[in-house]
């Protein structure tokens, strides 16, 4: 990460901490970044569990000119298709203008998924795999940020929650659990940054798998360290937990990505 990317991540963090809006995200240029900077930004979006079709808008922008519009895109289902200003469907190398159909429930209540009904063929020469790979890469970065946030929340909680007369963070078993989660997140990050440089399918798949694993480990550790309050929907942690659960299989499941890595091996 270079110093400009770090400054941008800090500015995004600052904004998301204080007053988030879609217009501000767009104004800061989040949807028009090069891949190496985009993964830094999307880690921050994950860090704050930002809702909305953020990944989808960037993927759509790689295929059509958005002119400032928000967009969503998918193959079968698309996120926030009722709200997005442009709804697109990918089928093979065809790009369709679509409208939202039936709503599908998501474990993450901030995700509203809709079946896609195709209306008009826009192009039949799109590189669908490159578009889906971009989505997988940004989703991996989001998972990284989600994982980091959950480790931070669990560490803060472990420092204040008292049981058996002392902070639970002083117990070695709790420390180890959190250290493992922190390591998993830290070791997944270089894969995301490397994949953003090469944009090679195998690298993107590796990053997606490792970030999903790391975020899941962080989620489980955070849930356990928080004890019963962690299971409460009204508690803050639930937004991160549920988004992690929803994003782990999004843009390709772990087995699909592992299979792709296997195929690419000589």
């Amino acid at each position, binding site marked *: 990460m270079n110093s*400009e990317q770090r*400054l*941008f991540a800090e*500015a*995004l963090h*600052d*904004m998301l901490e204080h*007053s988030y809006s879609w217009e*501000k995200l767009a*104004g*800061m*240029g989040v949807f028009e*970044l090069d891949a190496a*900077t985009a993964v830094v*930004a999307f880690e921050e979006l994950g860090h704050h569990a930002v809702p909305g079709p953020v990944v989808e808008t960037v993927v759509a922008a790689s295929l059509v000119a958005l002119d400032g519009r928000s967009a969503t895109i998918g193959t079968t289902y698309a996120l926030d298709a009722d709200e997005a200003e442009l709804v697109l469907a990918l089928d093979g190398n065809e790009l369709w203008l679509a409208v939202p159909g039936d709503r599908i429930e998501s474990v993450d209540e901030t995700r509203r998924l809709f079946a896609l009904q195709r209306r008009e063929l826009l192009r039949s020469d799109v590189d669908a795999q490159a578009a889906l790979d971009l989505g997988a890469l940004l989703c991996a970065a989001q998972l990284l940020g989600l994982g980091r946030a959950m480790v931070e929340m669990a560490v803060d909680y472990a420092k204040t929650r008292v049981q058996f007369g002392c902070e639970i963070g002083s117990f070695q078993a709790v420390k180890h659990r959190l250290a493992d989660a922190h390591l998993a997140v830290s070791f997944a990050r270089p894969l995301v940054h490397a994949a953003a440089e090469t944009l090679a399918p195998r690298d993107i798949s590796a990053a997606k798998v490792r970030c999903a694993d790391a975020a899941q480990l962080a989620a489980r550790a955070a849930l356990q360290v928080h004890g019963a309050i962690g299971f409460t929907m009204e508690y803050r942690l639930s937004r991160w937990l549920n988004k992690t659960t929803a994003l782990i299989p999004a843009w390709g499941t772990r087995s699909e990505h592992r299979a792709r890595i296997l195929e690419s091996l000589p």
Partner: protein
Amino acid sequence: MKIVVLVKQVPDSGAERNLRAEDNTVDRASANNVINEMDEYALEEALRIQEAHGGSTVTVLTMGPERATESIRKALSMGPDGAVHVLDDALSGTDALGTSKVLAAALKRLEPDLVLCGAESTDARGQVLPHMLAERLGVAALTGARKLTVDGSQLTIERQTEEGYEVVTAATPAIVSVWDTINEPRYPSFKGIMAAKKKPVETLTLADLGVSADEAGWAGALTTVASHAKRPPRSAGVKVTDDGEGGTKLVEFLVSEKFV
């Protein structure tokens, strides 16, 4: 219109801040240093005026040590055209009066139509600098603005007071200080951050400004902090247990403190 915005680097007011034991000055070395929050509002106001009035330039003016360059770059990433950094080892220990002398010399060089600054800095909270600068430069001071309107060379502000606001006007050149009620500062875009790398930052020494070293720094300071101490922790207070006389005891307390 030529606009200069005064930007000061200060220790983050969100973290614990200290004075140094050896000379009673603000400990900046161990602090997380940021742009004085109120100055961001001044900068935002300058950028809005620039956007509304074509042909305007916005220059950031900072006086501070080497590490203030971080804050200058950050300010530049919000959109101003360039910056001037007054940097001189002899500036260490400068008080408000000395600061006004140095900044006035820099402003005379820049010849702005409008100087914008925050109403106070979060470290010193003196609120005196805009007035001192106006006096030294012989220009009007419109201070504590919650709204600024520019109509040609005519400036109108709503000066925030405890009871409401006062409408004050002046013609340029003038200095306007603003509160955080005036606008909502923008966050830098990635393009802005990249562009800031290439923007000109002029570094000036006291000699460049024609200010002698004994007029600034410790030598020129008319005020000194003699000593400092941490605020004592709050005392435990008095607990009133209501045994039927609780109300009376509360009233007695309020009377003793002259609240009623």
